[in-house]
């Protein structure tokens, strides 16, 4: 269980999260919803150790891991795919994959990791020696997502992974997320395609200006209410 208890966090002048409590049970899919700037990205940054909370506790499988460095949490099964493209643009696709596999360890590991990445996203197979920035946006996102699969993460935190991608690519990415979930990964999903996220989710949280304003099953949220929340329709 990945759990946050009364977490507050922010950047300098700007407190962003206020006493947020949420949990991601093992093997579950949790959707994290909220308008622009509500604090979703900040919440994921706290969960992966990129941002130390100013108050509150982060725990992993019952152990307090507040303040642990992100690379330690990554080794303990947390995989955060950050906003934007989570790839090293100047490195080759193969080097990117090597870094995913415990940061470029033995050659055998790398070969295995490449096989895994290509099996998940065949399109990557033809681009292994190209720099990641030469890939299309969708392929870059696939490369980023392949880390979750290669690292065999227990908890995958996904920040707007479908942003700016063509619908057909979005389909492929959601199919991959579905596979991850079936294989037993827990997903914490920040997603602009709210309906698709909710279709996949076991639980949903809605955060508004840094506080949790809804926690429950997706069915309890209705589309009109959400639309109102996002666009202000009445």
């Amino acid at each position, binding site marked *: 269980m990945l759990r946050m208890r009364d977490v507050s966090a922010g950047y300098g002048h700007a407190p962003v999260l*206020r006493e947020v409590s949420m949990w991601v049970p093992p093997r579950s899919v949790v959707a994290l919803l909220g308008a622009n700037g509500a604090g979703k990205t900040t919440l994921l940054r706290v969960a992966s150790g990129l941002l130390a909370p100013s108050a509150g506790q982060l725990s992993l499988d019952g152990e307090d891991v507040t303040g642990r460095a992100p690379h330690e949490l990554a080794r303990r099964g947390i995989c955060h795919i950050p906003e934007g493209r989570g790839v090293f643009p100047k*490195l080759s696709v193969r080097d990117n994959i090597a870094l995913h596999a415990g940061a470029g360890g033995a050659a055998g590991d790398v070969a295995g990791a490449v096989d895994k990445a290509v099996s998940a996203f065949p399109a990557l197979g033809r681009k292994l020696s190209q720099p990641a920035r030469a890939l299309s946006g969708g392929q870059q996102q696939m490369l980023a997502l392949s880390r979750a699969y290669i690292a065999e993460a227990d908890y995958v935190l996904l920040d707007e992974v479908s942003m700016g991608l063509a619908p057909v690519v979005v389909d492929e990415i959601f199919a991959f997320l579905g596979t991850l979930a079936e294989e037993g990964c827990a997903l914490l999903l920040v997603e602009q395609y709210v309906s698709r996220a909710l279709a996949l989710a076991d639980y949903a949280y809605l955060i508004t*200006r840094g506080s949790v304003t809804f926690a429950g099953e997706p069915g309890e949220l209705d589309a009109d209410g959400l639309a109102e929340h996002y666009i202000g329709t009445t």
Partner: protein
Amino acid sequence: MGELAPFLIIGVTSGSVYGLAAMGLVLTYKTSGVFNFAHGAIAAVAAFAFYELHTVRGLPWPVALLLAVVVLPPVVAVGLERVTRGLAGGTVTTKIVATVGLQLAIVSALIAHYGGAGLSFPRFLPTESVGIVGINVGIDQLISAGVAAAAAVAFFVFFRASPTGTRMRAVVDNPELLSLAGTNPVAVRRWAWLIGTWFAAISGVLLAPQIGLDALLLTLLVVQAYGAAAVGLFASLPLTYAGGLLIGVLAALATNLVAGHQWLAQLPPAMPFVVLFVVLLLVPRHKLVEPGAHASPAPVAPLVSPATARALTVAAIAVAAVLPLLVGPRLPVYASALVFVLIFTSLHLLVRISGQISLAHAGLVAIGAATFAHLATGVGLPWLGAVALAGLVVVPVGMIVAVPAIRLAGLFLALATFGFALLLEKVAYPSDWVFGAQGTLPATRPAGFDSDVAFYYVLLAFTVAGLGLVALITRSRLGRLLRALADSPTTLSTLGLGINVTRITVFGLSALIAGVAGALHAAQSHAASATPFSALQSLTWLAVLVLFGPARGAAPVLAALFLVVAPTYGTSDALTDWMPVVFGLGALLVAVHEAGRAQRHAGGSTAQQGEPSRAAERIGAGSAAAERAERAVSRAGDRPGYRISIGTAREGGR
């Protein structure tokens, strides 16, 4: 081609070592975001360690070499990584001052311990010559070049093909993402610092036999690596090495070309700085990207209230007025301290008030001194007129220094001004028309004020006037614009200010004061010469000023007192010698402390460096991704806002 071959050989053998040093510099800069001005000082440390172990303690040279070049660097590297980690989120000035302070401390410590005169360095490599295409080349030089080339190639292979090399490239690309992928960026940076330090150490022991064991000279020779780094645009490692070779060849060719032109004699050794300055002036701005994040300065609460500050000012002037009665034969020391108050005041205006950086300040003061000597003694202008003109002549030079400030910011501005300062030192200082054929020009004091006491009061009047002028500027419209410029130039331009005009104005004003100070310096010491104004002095002055930065308006006074007066009160020479070490370390500590404050102010409480929002806000580096990253700095809200009850998901409370 046949005629050029000898120059190619000479150039490549000397350039290879610089290329290696430059690669180490660029590697640590790219991975840590901190440009290590102390890189050359580390080379000197290794050379001195070898000397100590081999010559002084009598160890066999291979053992001494092993200890100096292989064993020592890891210790240094771990320390450097720790220090630069603390600097990562600081302002550009703090990053520069920290390693400048470190350089000052190391060089001064070596001089204090081993003496300033060049010791002869053991030539541990065979020194016979072999003939290559008709010229004789020392075998030791060939070995040096070969070792450097081998190290460069080995490193390049390591960088491209090994797992650690991959991690290094990844930490350059995106350290945060690397940590998310399970690798500790700190460990990777430690590796980079280790290799960078190794390269510095190797170049140190390879260069020392050729130039002798002189801490300053060794440090400066590695400064030549800046030119090579510029050729690689401070980013590409192979191009950096190639830049080292290129500069070696250019210098060798220039030696041939300028033979017979006495005034150009200094051009070949200055070639690296010509390259540095030209690259920084001509390369498109977007190709020069500083790695890492920069913070704006954090606000500092004044140490004392305005009323107390006024009272202290009055008291200080009163003490200064009666000082000749109190200090007896030390008066000349206090008189030159007054000159330095003026120098620090001009630097304070530029660096602390306006947030600009210049490492060419000693050059401006030097030109003021030389101009004054020519005008007052040579041309025979009235004393006051010569002082005023000396100030005015320096103004356009200051504005030339401002030209890079328009194109460049931060580190690249600092390096461009440092390149300019080194050019002045190498090319202008030695020529007849600056400090004369003897290297020193007589300078006079005004008629009737020839005595030390009388001239002390002249200096006091100028100093009080200079401080008053800067205080006045600070309170005026220009002062508000300058202080705002230090905080956020982009915002200032979106409010309608032509910030380049403001930059040129402040560089010109600062130069005016520096020029006058130079004139007074010459008059006080009865002579104008290059010695007090070496380019390294600019670094020292900056470090000392920053050390007293927290004292705000009083910083120039305190800096001058500690730089000029305090060492003379030392009961032993040792104390005097070790003072600069204290300045250097002090500046380093203050810089690390300020970087920490700036980082906290910007809100980088992250476990890792590099807050994405800061990177994103650098306009021009913007992109869709940057825009998204900007969003990462979320907006907070105090209001309870929506209350969504389970089931209905409706907005309530409004």
